[in-house]
């Protein structure tokens, strides 16, 4: 049941990523800055962050499956997002062992996982010649705006996920 709900939520996020750019005003999109919504990744990282159990590999598998779905639905080049999301979930799992459970640490984990994913994505896209942007330009034009936009999303959903988890763990204790 838990997995069913999680899958439904992730699927909803997958679909809404496609209309995310429509919701932004055109003046922001028209700039040279590129904002890439990584909502699936942020959501999975947060859930992994709150999850106390040691079954974090389950979320890595989720990340790999939904990364592949992003590839199929939005990019038509298979494997890139799949690998990037898998790796960055792995990184966030490593971080979770060190960090405490509060919002600043959650933001830090989110930022690091986005940096990992973006590094893999731009690296692979450069190798297969989809883009050839100088890495410094890439840093300012794509990475920073993407981090800012996704951290805002993380801050918005943080209380919601936290509430769900606290309720769930209370139920488990009772």
């Amino acid at each position, binding site marked *: 049941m838990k997995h069913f709900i999680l899958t439904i939520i992730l*699927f909803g996020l*997958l*679909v*809404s*990523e*496609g*209309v*995310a*750019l*429509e*919701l932004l005003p*055109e003046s922001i*999109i*028209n700039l040279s800055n*590129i*904002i*890439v*919504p990584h909502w699936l990744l942020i959501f999975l990282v947060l859930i992994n962050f709150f999850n106390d159990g040691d079954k974090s590999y389950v979320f890595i598998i989720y990340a*790999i499956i939904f990364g592949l*779905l*992003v*590839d*199929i*639905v*939005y*990019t*038509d*080049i*298979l*494997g*890139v*997002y*799949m*690998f990037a999301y*898998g*790796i960055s979930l*792995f990184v966030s799992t490593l971080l979770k062992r060190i960090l405490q459970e509060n919002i600043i640490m959650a933001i830090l984990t989110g930022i690091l996982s986005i940096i990992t994913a973006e590094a893999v*994505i731009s690296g*692979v*896209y450069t190798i*297969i010649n*989809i*883009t050839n*942007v100088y890495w410094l330009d890439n840093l300012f034009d*794509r990475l920073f705006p993407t981090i800012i936009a996704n951290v805002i999303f993380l801050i918005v959903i943080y209380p919601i996920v936290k509430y769900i988890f606290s309720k769930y763990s209370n139920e488990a204790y009772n």
Partner: protein
Amino acid sequence: MSFLKRKSLFVMLIGIILMVVLIGYSLTNKDKFSTPEKLVKDSVGWVQGIAYKPVDFIVDSISNLQNLKMTYDENQVLREKITEYKTLALENRELEKENGELRKALELNESKRDYDSINATVIARSPERWLEQITIDRGKKHGIEENMAVITAEGMIGKVQKSSHLTSSVQLLTGFDNLNRISAIVKREKGADTFGLIERYDQDTESLVFRVIEDSKQELKEGEKVFSSNLGGSYPADILIGEIKEVVQDQYGLTKTALIKPAANVYDLNNVIVVDRSLLTSLEIEKDEAESKTLEDEETEEAIDEDEEL
């Protein structure tokens, strides 16, 4: 711990190999979806179609409110224009009729301007901005094939990259690379037209790069309009692509390149039209390739002869 580390390293290596295989697969099959891809794409597309409607409604109503302010002024201008258009429409109808009659007299059945159009709605835009792709809610079932041109009322916006059964992905002009060239033409009222190729989209100058292949001894000027030409094969003629923004010499000073500002706004898309050069579908080409070729040649030769006589 060392065992765990070794295990995760092992998994990562398998992951990298899998990624390379998948990328290799998708790069070699650039113009076709595999069956599982089609299945996923169509089922997600169905949900996207539903999810897009409320979002579209909200976005539309916001922009409508913004437009409301300018409505009165626009209305005045448009009213004046309508009267002009009425006479133009009448003239146009006369000319069309005359054109049709002349064509019939010459026994020319196909026109390079003819196309079938399929209306489609945009249901998603790829969040990966480097690829500049959108998904539309029409696919093979509705007659969409790869490489058809996609336009809006303002002008050309891209081409169909891959089509699935119920949805298709469209490559936007802003994501065009060397593999997607468009043969284009600069039309002039006086003097010869200039032919060329639209080679790619340049991210730095935010414009399409138009290379002149046939020098018509007439300088390209800023503000001249660039249309698609029928020589490219898959696109119908006379679709507006954009306007010349700047003319530059190329690296070696041998040819001219012009930077073109696309006519259509690719960031604000709702309804698009997929156009197909009618009577030139692949099946028919296979069927009577040789036949139609010879016929066309004869017809054009006849047309040229008659022109000369006149």
